[in-house]
């Protein structure tokens, strides 16, 4: 790898219809056990009949640049990968749940086999040279895009141009890498 990568995800809530194809696709791709999920849909209704608004968005691990799960992991199972993603080494994980408590985004769960689990940005696919995750690939509205913020392909800029961009809980100071377009 000639340069360091920094993967992030851009999520266009204007396109998202909240269908959950991303959830099913992730579960199949990553063999997520029954009753758990690595990504999910948040659906927010505001107002009263008939003055209403509805926002749907797909969420997952934020792959923070300053990740409390990494800081708080006593065994270094949670770690930064060279591509800007946060990963879990299952062999080192003791299932102590320190990361679950530390994560401001509630992105993790304990796998029935005893380790912490969460979205990996489909690390295996990235390593395989694909520029999609299972969820970005399946999404019928193409509202999810995996981007490399260190690349100069202009993809992230093109998507964000002229749009209001939100991140979740900037006050947590974790430098999250999911960007929502509203």
């Amino acid at each position, binding site marked *: 790898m000639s340069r360091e990568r920094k993967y992030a995800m851009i999520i266009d809530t204007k396109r998202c*219809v909240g269908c959950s194809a991303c959830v099913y696709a992730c579960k199949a791709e990553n063999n997520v056990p029954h009753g758990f999920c690595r990504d999910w849909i948040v659906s927010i209704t505001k107002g009263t*009949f008939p003055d209403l608004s509805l926002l749907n968005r797909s969420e997952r691990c934020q792959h923070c640049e300053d990740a409390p799960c990494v800081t708080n992991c006593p065994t270094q199972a949670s770690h930064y990968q060279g591509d800007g993603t946060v990963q879990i080494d299952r062999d080192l994980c003791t299932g102590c749940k320190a990361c679950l408590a530390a994560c401001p985004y509630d992105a993790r769960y304990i796998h029935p086999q005893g380790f912490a689990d969460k979205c990996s940005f489909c690390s*295996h696919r990235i390593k395989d040279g694909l520029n999609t995750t299972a969820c970005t*690939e399946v999404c*019928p509205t193409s509202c999810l895009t995996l981007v490399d913020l260190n690349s100069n392909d202009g993809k992230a800029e093109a998507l964000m141009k002229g749009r209001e961009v939100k991140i979740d809980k900037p006050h947590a100071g974790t430098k999250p890498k999911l960007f929502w377009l509203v």
Partner: protein
Amino acid sequence: MVSSYSRRDFIKISSCFLASSAFVGVNPIGLFAEDMDGVLADKVVPTICELCFWRCGVNAHVKEGKVFKLTGQQDHPLSNGKLCPRGTGGHGLLYDPDRLKTPLIRETVNGKQQFRAASWEEAITLIARKFDQIKETEGADKIVLFSHGFGASFFKRLFKAYGIHNFSAPSYAQCRGAREEAFKLTFGHGVGSPEGLDIAQSKCLLLIGSHLGENMHNTAVQDFADAVSAGCKVIAVDPRFSVAASKAERWLPIKPGTDLALIRSLIHVLLEENLYDQKFVKDNCIGLEDLRAGVVDATPEEAYSLTGIDAQTIRDVARDLARFAPASLVHPGRHVAWYGDDTQRSRAIAILNALLGNYKQPGGLIHQTEKYGVPNPYHFPSNKKTAVKYKSKFPMASKVPSNEIVEETIKGNFKSWFVYGTNLTETLGDQKATLEAIKALDFMVAVDVLPMEVTGYADVVLPEVTYLERYDDLDDRVYRKPYVAIRQPAVSPLSHLDAKPGHEIAGLLAKEWGLSELFPPIEEYLDQRLQAAGLDLKTMKEKGVLVKEDKHIYQAPGEQLQFRTPSGKIELSSANLQSHGFDSVPQYTKHPENPPGYYRLIYGRVPMHTFGRTANNRILGELMPENELWINQITGQDLGLIDGEYVHLINQEGKKSVSKIKLKLTERIRPDVVYMAHGFGHTDPRLKFAYHRGASANEMITQLTIDPIMGGTGLKNNFVTFSR
């Protein structure tokens, strides 16, 4: 500009479902050992989805003989590499532990009826001899084939050759039949499936009850998202704040049952303010003056008193449609069997589109005519000597309404049903009549993958393998581009089941009837068809789909438009309808109102399910195991109902729902209406997951309002109240 969401806004819908749902059993697949993220497939098989009728191209990812993942085919015009949630969970059907295992034959033991497992030979012989007997004694016209799904084509061919010509499908009178007839009357052709609509390029899109986004037809939703991103002005007419309404510039929370009054008023404004495309209408339409006279009374003020949509909004919507015309589109909908005036309502939509001049224009109606074109060298001679085709009593019914077959069966005019892939007792409304008809039958056969309710009433049940285990005929259609696609087995039929593909079942019957030459081995048949088009099966199996360009979607410069109507023009006023005693221009008649204390029951689709077809799918059921009844927050509170509690429904005729349904108190619906997803509340205990989960809308629909033009069943004139 980076800003933040506030914490209390966060409600994890999906994970809430996960945490709160009780699951029956565990993952039935149990495929992988630990630590198997991102399994690499041994092979990827391109095939066609069957989770709904859209029929997207999918890639089945197979590892150690098992399908573990389904993705959208990149080159298939219906998927473009994408897939909806249902298609993504399609292997939940393949590995459903409740699948039918063997042929079943009804028998009576000690006065009690039960099924016994039978061999294919015994079951097939029984059906063949029974049909022979009916054919000889009473005539093959006493037999009806009901079907839904792509696999039915083999049975249709077989039956035609045998001499059975009575085919019926609930997809007609219970779904889009009225729309097709209305567009034929107006434009000379139906809207078709997948619909010929240029949504992606629309600049102004009027949705009347269409809930795109919850209605998850893959490419239609892709197109809708593209339109929304491009700034399309969406206007959503719906008693419920649908997902589509949330993307809309205007939401018109219409009083249900009054849609036709609204559309007539939009026509009125376009004519009154001369906003319609005058050149287009002059060149291509007839009946403008009749139309003008026919909607003279449909003022926005009059429409307000009926629909609850204020007059200014109606004028604004009409002006918006006109401003962006011809890139304005009034969506014709799909399931239109609502109130019994459905042909006329669809006619009004067709007329509105005509006035906008959007025919064969970017962003408007497109006419997808050019198929890929794979000829069929196998001649299937139609045996017309032995039977006459039943003719519907409804003048404009180009197909026989399923409800009419039910009626005629009760009268004794049909003696036998062969039911392929359609759960009739859960689709036709008026369950009592359906069951009465079934009772009156001498002999009934059901072919299905799962023990759907209808199979429980059959004399012989034949288990079919799923779409992931079989070949079907070639899919030769068009969605903007003509294509031919193949359905082929991703895996061998599951060995612990004695199920067969439809083509093989039809082949076995054909052999009994001396028609074997109609069913050569399936690969030979497909290859011969493909060879006739200069293609071959090997290439087709590798590629999955072949695509051509269609240069005729839009009107070419100087192209004279032609319409296959009696006048050769778009018929704003229909002499054809008038000659049968119907209104030549759609008129509005009021529908029944809510009885006091009752709420009109409307229903629709959800992204995770295709009605009852997927209710037993464990993968899909993980995120949506049951349906909910939406009721307005204030209405619910006034009635003392609690969000999340379970209630029985009781309809206007006192019919009480078999199972209870969870209440969802929400601001997103009018106070006089309740809404639920169709297809839940299954009553056959053999459907172990779906059994008694949620409630059935069909069960509550005891009142059918029949469309006098084509016999469709208005299903939304039913009302419910609640009981703990």
